[in-house]
């Protein structure tokens, strides 16, 4: 079992959405129209039967409701917390048409899944052992989803993860206020109750294990590697002290035993327009930074972060400034002192320089301009004893800069499947990764049982 969070962590991070009470859930569930061929379900990357699970809440069967959710999305608890529902199920809700106010699907989903997890119940049973063994690389949402579904089908699963704790970005990469009380670990513990899943931590692909080695040892292989690196700004001053990768910053504070001891900087500039930028900015503010600015090169509406997320930043005192394209980081004595931007103009996604420049004084720059799939997952030179396999990019076909997969999430190697952010064509969302893992597991299961 994972360690419980320190009291300091629990006290510091306030839940973004306090859970619905039973009364609130009953009232809200009554708003669902139980639509035919429901738009919310169509909008859900994991095809959760939303009207059914809401109806089950309304009829006083939250455990049954949770099972409906978890049948399609084993990380339904986390997705209830981190999904951008405002651009998925809730955007599709027909209540928007008449009232501009969708059913609070995400919060209802959390109500049901919390209920079941609080009872310590795991509603799925593992089928008899098939004798087949599957390796899953990466204990993030895609890997965990795949592992659980495979275990349910009776296969023996070994999950290899490079980091000391499971969960992937759920554990290391999303804002603390979205998953308080160590929820990511509690969810993994609950997921593991299915049985048949072993997790090997601190095991790095390319160093401790190789594709060829895993292929030889297991009947099938699933890669849920995530994106190993962050994009660089490629501007002067990027190596100055105080220029930090936003994902690393979030990982550090997520793993901190006492957030109060973390330095947030005084004046912070966050470069980027996605969820990570917002997560990093809001947490910087909550940690005590005096001034936090999100700088984005295009219009606000072109940001990947949803309107809800942008408003969350603003209500937390974060300034969102647009049409600012990074030019250089200014420093003195090796430390960042400010950031200079080209001022852009345009409309929507189109933008061009105006010729003007703007400097924002700061003592910290957080880079959140997206991540990059690393085809060489480990720097082998640091591990001279390791037996490196071929770089992934040489073993498996890429589509664009990520792994090519088919509709079943099978890679160019018929024994290897992949999903989550490392696979091409995805949405870089937890919920999409869960769907990838589920689809891959079903495909692996069909393949193994035909053999």
């Amino acid at each position, binding site marked *: 079992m994972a360690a419980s969070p320190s009291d300091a962590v629990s006290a510091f991070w306030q839940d973004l959405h306090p859970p619905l009470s039973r009364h609130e859930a009953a009232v809200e569930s*009554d708003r669902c129209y*139980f639509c*035919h061929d429901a738009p919310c379900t169509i909008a859900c990357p994991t095809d959760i039967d939303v009207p059914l699970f809401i109806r089950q809440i309304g009829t006083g069967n939250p455990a049954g409701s949770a099972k409906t959710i978890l049948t399609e999305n084993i990380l339904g608890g986390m997705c209830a917390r981190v999904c951008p529902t405002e651009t998925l199920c809730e955007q599709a809700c*027909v209540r928007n*048409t*008449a009232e501009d106010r969708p059913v609070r699907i995400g919060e209802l989903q959390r109500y049901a899944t919390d209920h079941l997890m609080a009872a310590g119940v795991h509603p799925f049973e593992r089928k008899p052992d098939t004798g087949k063994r599957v390796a899953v690389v990466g204990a993030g949402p895609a890997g965990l989803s795949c592992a659980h579904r495979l275990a349910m089908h009776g296969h023996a699963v070994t999950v290899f993860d490079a980091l000391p704790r499971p969960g992937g970005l759920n554990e290391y990469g999303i804002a603390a206020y979205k998953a308080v009380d160590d929820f990511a670990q509690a969810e993994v513990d609950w997921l593991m109750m299915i049985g048949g899943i072993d997790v090997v931590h601190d095991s790095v692909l390319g160093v401790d294990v190789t594709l060829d080695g895993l292929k030889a040892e297991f009947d099938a292989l699933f890669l849920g590697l995530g994106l190993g690196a962050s994009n660089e700004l490629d501007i002067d001053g990027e190596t100055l002290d105080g220029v930090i990768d936003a994902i690393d910053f979030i990982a550090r504070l997520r793993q901190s035993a006492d957030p109060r001891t973390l330095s947030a900087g005084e004046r912070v500039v966050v470069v980027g327009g996605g969820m990570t930028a917002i997560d990093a900015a809001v947490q910087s503010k909550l940690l005590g930074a005096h001034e936090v600015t999100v700088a984005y090169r295009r219009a606000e509406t072109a940001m990947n972060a949803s309107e809800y997320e942008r408003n969350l930043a603003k209500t937390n005192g974060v300034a969102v400034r647009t049409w600012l394209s990074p030019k250089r980081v200014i420093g003195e004595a090796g430390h960042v002192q400010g950031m200079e931007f080209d001022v852009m103009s345009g409309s929507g996604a189109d933008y061009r320089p105006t010729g003007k420049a703007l400097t924002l004084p700061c003592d910290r720059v957080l880079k959140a301009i997206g991540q990059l799939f690393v085809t060489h997952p480990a720097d082998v030179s640091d591990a001279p004893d390791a037996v490196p396999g071929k770089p992934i990019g040489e073993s498996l076909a890429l589509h664009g800069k990520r792994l090519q997969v088919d509709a079943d999430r099978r890679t160019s190697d018929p024994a290897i499947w992949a999903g989550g952010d490392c696979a091409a064509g995805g949405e870089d969302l937890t919920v999409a990764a869960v769907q990838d893992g589920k689809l891959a597991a079903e495909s692996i299961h069909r393949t193994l049982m035909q053999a």
Partner: protein
Amino acid sequence: MADLSSDFLGIRSPNPFWLASAPPTDKEYNVVRAFEAGWGGVVWKTLGENPNVVNVNGPRYGAIHSSDRKLIGFNNIELITDRPLEINLEEITRVKRDWPDRAMIVSLMVPCEEKNWRDILARVEDTGADGIELNFGCPHGMSERGMGAAVGQVPEYIRMVTEWCKQYSSLPVIVKLTPNIADIRGPARAAKQGGADAVSLINTINSIISVNLDTMSPEPSIDGHGSHGGYCGPAVKPIALNMVAEIARDPETAGLPISGIGGITTWRDAAEFIALGAGNVQVCTAAMTYGFKVVEELKSGLSDWMDQQGHARIADIVGRATPKVRDWQHLNLNYIAKAKIDQDLCISCGRCHVVCEDTSHQAITHEVDGQRRFQVIDEECVGCNLCVSVCPVQDCITMEQQTSGTDARTGEPISGDYANWTTHPNNPMRVPA
């Protein structure tokens, strides 16, 4: 502004809204609060003989709720007043004296013996009350003792007791009917034959409102056991409306004044009862759900609607809908209507499609040209109104009468002539035209 004042059997009240004989009218305290709130009259909770009855000392009510706990149906296992007769009579006297413009009706229930009725009638008359209501309706507790619904289910008893009351009292007699019978017209005719000045209906419907699935006890539960009780509230309104209409249009009872009761919650409910033939209405559950203030909505709503419709007095609307009630066989089979969906109002929930597809006539699309769209297929639509009933948006789906051309479903020309089942060729018992 419309005149809401009511004259029912010569009993005047400032409005047609009376509180029915029930817990809200059991004591002077409550009734005074009701009059202060603006109720037109009360039917005092049923008096019985001494020694007074006793009630259970635990839950006596149960309810059916919607998901957000809106009360839809209500039941009770309470009996008639459990206070001594003398106290009730004293309070009735005082309240009527203090509130002379409000209607004061006294509900009565005593054993089916002439002497028992004669004795209590005299005492009630001394209070100055405006009338009496004979409780032949309560389905629980008292009926096991040969009173309440046990009388209301036997027309001969209704007639007999009504005759005694007319003989021994000068007060107007309202006979309250139980719905727990096969045909409401029998008891109503018996009341009229006995000389009743009016009938009031419905009393509560026999019911078990719910079962506690943990304890397996019906609710309300008394020490692990439950009993059937009387069902009321918004859910019973349709049953009551039909019974009111049956009596209003029965040639044997037509013209007999009716006090309408059963789930009246809004002004609209009240107007519907009056339109079907009720001279006034009685309310209980709405008050027990929301408090006496609901009468303000009842009064303003009815008054505003009457103004809009140009009705000056209550009497002008009594029974206006009664002639519109027909037996099925007399409905016009040449009337053709089809559903029409207003695409501007449609929110695309698809409920109309799925219920039509699954349970009816496959007459609503879910896709048009690959797009989610709900549209009526006239060739399949029988005009059943199911889609209208389930649509969450008011007026989004309407039933449109077809007056010319052919019916797209049958291919038959649409006729403006009236034709019903009695002459239909498929009717083996048709009468030659």
